[in-house]
């Protein structure tokens, strides 16, 4: 995101393609969306990225990264 400077960007540390949480978790979908929208008044300049501070796994595990790499390389 930092390289293409969208006017306002909210970053969430979820795997790409799971922006609003795991499948069928409506509570989490809504919580993430609500958090992102709540950032609107805090932006002060173009290209600013605000971190929503949300981890994918409750314990902060990064094990999802290996699985995601495999998925990303499947469309070659």
């Amino acid at each position, binding site marked *: 995101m930092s390289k293409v400077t969208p006017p306002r960007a909210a970053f969430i*540390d979820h795997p790409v393609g799971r922006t*609003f949480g795991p*499948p069928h978790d*409506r509570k989490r979908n*809504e919580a993430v*969306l609500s958090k992102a929208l709540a950032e609107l008044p805090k*932006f002060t300049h*173009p290209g600013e990225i605000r971190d929503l501070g949300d981890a994918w796994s409750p314990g902060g595990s990064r094990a999802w990264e290996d699985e995601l790499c495999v998925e*990303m390389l499947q*469309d070659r």
Partner: protein
Amino acid sequence: MPFDYLPVMAQNSAPKPPRVLVLPSKPAWQPACKSVGESRVALLSSAAARLADQEPFIPREDLSYRKVSADPNAGEIIIDHHSGIGRVPKQDPEIIFPRTALASLAERGVIGSRAPFYFSFMGGVRQHQRIENELAPALAKELADAQVDLALLVPY
């Protein structure tokens, strides 16, 4: 430390050259004139998402877009994007195109209202100039016509 997607995307593109990330030629900043609670909100997605009865996108350089009803009960969402990450969101497109969550926020008064339609197009297209000169202005006109105050683009 956030996951570094660019090296994996470069590996994915090989033997084609890695994607070039292009800055917009014009500044895109607009002041927010209304609060979120007063705003009409629209979603945009680069997942090439559409309703099942709409014309399919053609990977990988399709520059068209689809106008999708904001009503979560309007029909099944199909994701046409070619990316390998689609296995999970195809099980539940709400995790990249949260029509149900936005409808709930509208009902609860968190946002002013939802736009009647949302928009989706193909992400990862390499024709940057045509995106800026054709696709983006067409989407901007759709949003202006629908009197949208706030558009949230969910990258895919």
